[in-house]
């Protein structure tokens, strides 16, 4: 909490929708112009004031991870899964319309400059959160292997993006029966044997988190996980979004919005 004054500002602003298109049966891709609010780091998020879809009235704002930021152009992108009232409302937005947002918020991923090769493993909407690591790792000269998991191949997002940045991309899906934790563990052990892992980065699956925690302990490799929890304020004020963490053997609460959403992988309790 003492770092309050050191945090870069979060901006409360009306963003202008530039594009909002379906990418597949479940996900949509939103691009907004939001000026200074676009200065975000991978793993940070925004609170979006979702418009009301017909017959529904989402009251609280919805947290969405940064999917891509272009601070120079004042542009931010989100990749969201249409699930409930809030995201159904987001899906109604047309170019030219406004979207109230607050951000960037929270503490994001940290890249260790000494790392040579990292592994990003995500599933479902977690793939959106990991997306910005593709460019960030490349800019830091760190090689990256992305293991992208989804129910079906057409629901895998960010594949091309990681590939464009020179990442090695492995997709696993439920329909191909290769997304289970034991198969992923075999993949990871293979990468570890090739010495292609100085850090784990993950989001979107408790089962995959457990696999990585086991390996992180066994091989003494650091890891970071981006976690979700239902939120209200987004600024660490209301304590709605706490989760349990194991810090040195003691179970303590931390706020996902303020202390995270990115946490030390070994402290996280799935």
């Amino acid at each position, binding site marked *: *909490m*003492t770092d*309050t*004054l050191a*945090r870069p*500002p*979060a*901006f*409360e602003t009306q963003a202008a929708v530039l594009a909002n298109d379906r990418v597949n049966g479940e996900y949509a891709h939103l691009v907004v112009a939001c000026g200074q609010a676009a200065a975000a780091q991978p793993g940070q998020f925004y609170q979006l*004031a979702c418009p009301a879809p017909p017959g529904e*009235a*989402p*009251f*609280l*704002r919805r947290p969405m991870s940064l999917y891509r930021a272009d601070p120079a152009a004042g542009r931010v992108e989100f990749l969201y899964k249409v699930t409930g009232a809030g995201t159904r409302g987001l899906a109604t937005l047309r170019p030219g319309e406004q979207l*109230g947002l*607050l951000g960037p*918020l929270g503490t994001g991923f940290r890249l260790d400059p000494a790392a040579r090769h990292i592994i990003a493993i995500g599933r479902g909407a977690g793939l959106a959160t990991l997306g910005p690591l593709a460019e960030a790792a490349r800019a830091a000269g760190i090689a990256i292997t992305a293991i992208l998991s989804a129910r079906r191949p057409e629901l895998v997002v960010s594949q091309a993006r990681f590939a464009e940045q020179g990442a090695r991309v492995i997709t696993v899906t439920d329909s191909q029966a290769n997304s289970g934790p034991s198969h992923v563990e075999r993949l990871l052990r293979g990468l570890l044997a090739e010495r292609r892992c100085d850090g784990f980065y993950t989001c979107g699956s408790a089962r995959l988190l457990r696999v990585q925690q086991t390996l992180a302990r066994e091989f003494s490799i650091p890891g970071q996980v981006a976690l979700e*929890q*239902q*939120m*209200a*304020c*987004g*600024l*660490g*004020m*209301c*304590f*709605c979004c*706490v989760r349990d963490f194991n810090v040195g053997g003691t179970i303590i*609460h931390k706020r996902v919005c*303020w202390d995270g959403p990115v946490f030390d992988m070994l402290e996280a309790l799935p």
Partner: protein
Amino acid sequence: MTDLSVRIGGLTLPNPVMPASGTFAEGLAQAIDLNRLGALVTKTITRELRAGNPLPRVAEVAGGMLNAIGIPSKGVAYFRDVTLPLYRGWSPPLVVSISAPTAEGFAELAAEISLPGVAAIEANISCPNIEEDGRAFAMKPASTAIVVRQLRAATALPLWVKLTPNTGEIAEVAKAAEAEGADALVCANTILAMAIDPHSFKPRLGNLLGGLSGPAIKPIVLRQLYQCARAVRLPIIGCGGIMTALDAVEYLLAGAVAVQIGTATFLDSAAMPNIIDGLDRFCDARGLASVSELTGAIRHEETDEEDLSWLSPPT
């Protein structure tokens, strides 16, 4: 330029807009300039360390939200050593909200946190989550009198007493607090409520019951503030569902001297500064020199007794 300053007991605030306890922390400084606020109000602190309630702690409902946070508190030492020094970095007076399970506990805590840098104590004798079934001191005039008497003896700081809207006798509770030496009242906390997911048959809060806040409660709490304002001479701070400057004006007209803003900040981090600017413009447009001219300025038209008789049938 309107004079926005207000007096609450012995304390003068630069403007009448401050956060509601539990909906504010230093994190808001990431989004707005805290020096613009009329006061800073801490989350309720308790002497014992508390972890808080099970998840989910929040659920949204039509026009508002339910919360059952359960007052997670890091205790007095943390407040004294970390929170208090941190807040010295901002200029608005610091109001510290406290709670305890007993009247003695309240008094001890009030004495412990009567420290330099604390401008007033807000006694949360109304938090509906911590007592069984949501019962609290502020439900009854007698239990209110006991706790306020002990608090009054324990501290020389201005003492604000936060009422619960869950009582049927709020004016009597207000009078009891006044009689025992409170300097101001805060009207009010959240309304005890619940929600059930009709698909899973499960309660939507981990704690089952929670507090309703937001626009949904405004007409009810406004009525209660009006009833209190007619019953006591103490300054009253209005709190419940205020989203805009006009909502704040309604509370002032009903008799409030100042307002607290909670849920609105979750929907727009700039809600408080916007309400301050809105009050300034509102007064300007009406040629009011001071915002305090609005307090209790509700206009009662002359009415014949019969016209109102249906409102409260003769008993």
